[in-house]
């Protein structure tokens, strides 16, 4: 039987969410691996763009930072940071954004700023970077994260970037252009927003129980009526994925 790590599992599932031709705002780490895997399988026309202003990257090695020069050499285009956030993201040219953070709450809001109070925090996190605008303006957003109770509180300490606020109506009232989070991919399964914007369990990976997911989630988690069991990573997917991270930096 094929074995794989939790990171491999999440990355393969994230890759499958991408569509051929998607323009994706990528970060380093698992999202970068997911995009490169998708490009080598079902989405050869995927366009990867980076907040550093790189469009259509073709990295020949694993990029170790968002500004790795391998993202520039052989890219389609490089523009200023101001242009990437205006002409590309704000204008609506980005189909998919990947997001991450220390906390994701019941309505898909993300905290990347502080644990505790803003002015007297227990922990000061790195901050928004590009994520506030990606969460607002990319057509679809995906979150890849390990499933742990402390990462899934009922309410984030600080809403660095918007999911559905306290419900879809609130997000829509803000007039923001993007569709918000479409799925959270974890090592246990998938959370997706329901009609109200609340994240509900829509799929579990093989062998995972609903109770196990609930035990690792900080709010009373609803399970979808048509709860799916996911298709495990295939041999070919894993082979291609491991080629992308030969030193096992992100996939371990």
């Amino acid at each position: 039987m094929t074995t794989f790590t939790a990171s491999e599992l999440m990355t393969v599932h994230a890759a499958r969410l991408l569509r051929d031709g998607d323009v994706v705002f990528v970060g380093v780490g698992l999202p970068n691996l997911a995009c490169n895997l998708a490009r080598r399988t079902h989405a050869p026309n995927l366009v990867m763009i980076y907040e550093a202003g790189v469009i259509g990257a073709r990295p020949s090695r694993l990029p170790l930072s968002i500004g790795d020069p391998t993202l520039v050499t052989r890219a389609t285009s490089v523009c200023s940071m101001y242009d990437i956030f205006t002409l590309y993201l704000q204008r609506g040219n980005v189909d998919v954004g990947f997001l991450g953070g220390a906390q994701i709450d019941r309505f898909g809001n993300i905290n990347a700023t502080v644990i505790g109070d803003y002015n007297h925090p227990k922990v000061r996190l790195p901050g928004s970077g590009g994520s506030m605008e990606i969460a607002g303006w990319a057509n679809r957003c995906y979150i890849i994260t390990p499933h742990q109770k402390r990462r899934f509180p009922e309410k984030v300490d600080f809403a660095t970037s918007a999911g559905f606020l306290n419900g879809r109506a609130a997000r829509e009232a803000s007039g923001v252009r993007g569709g918000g989070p479409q799925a959270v991919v974890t090592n246990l399964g998938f959370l997706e927003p329901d009609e109200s914007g609340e994240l509900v369990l829509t799929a579990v990976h093989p062998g995972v129980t609903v109770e196990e997911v609930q035990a690792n989630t900080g709010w009373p988690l609803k399970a979808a009526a048509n709860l799916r069991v996911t298709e495990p990573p295939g041999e070919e997917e894993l082979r291609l994925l491991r080629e992308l991270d030969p030193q096992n930096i992100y996939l371990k």
Partner: protein
Amino acid sequence: MSKLCTLKEAIAQHVHDGDCVYAAGFTHLIPFAAGHEIIRQGRKDLTLARATPDLIYDQMVAAGCAKKVIYSYIGNPGVGSLRIIRTELEAGRLEFEEYSHFGMISRLQAGAAGLPFMPMNQTAATALEQANPLYRRVTDPYSGREVVVVPALNPDVAIIHVQRCDERGNAHIWGILGEQKEAAFAAKRVILTAEEIVPEEVIRSDPNRTLIPEFVVSAVCHVPYCSHPSYTQGYYDRDNDFYLEWDKISETPESVQAWLQEWVYGITDREAYWQKVGAETHKRLSVPPLYAAPVNYGEY
């Protein structure tokens, strides 16, 4: 008129205690040599503005140069946390102003454009907007809807590393552009550091590549390998090993001070630093050439 001088002279003349400094470079062209020279000259009470403070500001904060940081992402890129800045912020010993990347670059764009503010569409997230009173709102007079605005940022001095420039300060930049151009136009004074000083004719052979013109530049310094452990596209690679190493060095004040002693205070300039880095690292970071397709401007 030539503006060539040493980096030591440029920092002495153009960076003063209390200044707001923007050492530009979004993950690329980060002017580490200039940060080290500021540390050596013992500047105090600086406001350090950068979208991503990166190791350069972690080191400057460790050396006691800063009273405040303005930023949009305080991380060690690809590694994790910036331990020193984070510790100082959590302890309340360092003032700060926080934005998203777009808010930060919009501040610079407004400053560069000579505008009082720049508008941005709403993101639905309002927590940071509420936490930072410099975020404001303006009503779009066409739709009646509100946009979020940030005020112009006009640093006292910007430090900009470039691949090549002439001795007057006309600069060619390629690879990741980040906020190089915006910082140069926004700042009151500009120190250019360059991998190569080239004849004016090289610059004039490709005017579309010139992002910074001489008349916004105060000083031009020839500083090869200025960006190590960051990189300069086409010249040398990023030294990721050092980014990982800094994560360890910055675990204790003692190891940080020892590192500063060995690599900053104990060093005269970037040339000495680069020699000390050593041949093995030089080789590891060297990059085979790969040239752009020719571009014909025409002999008009």
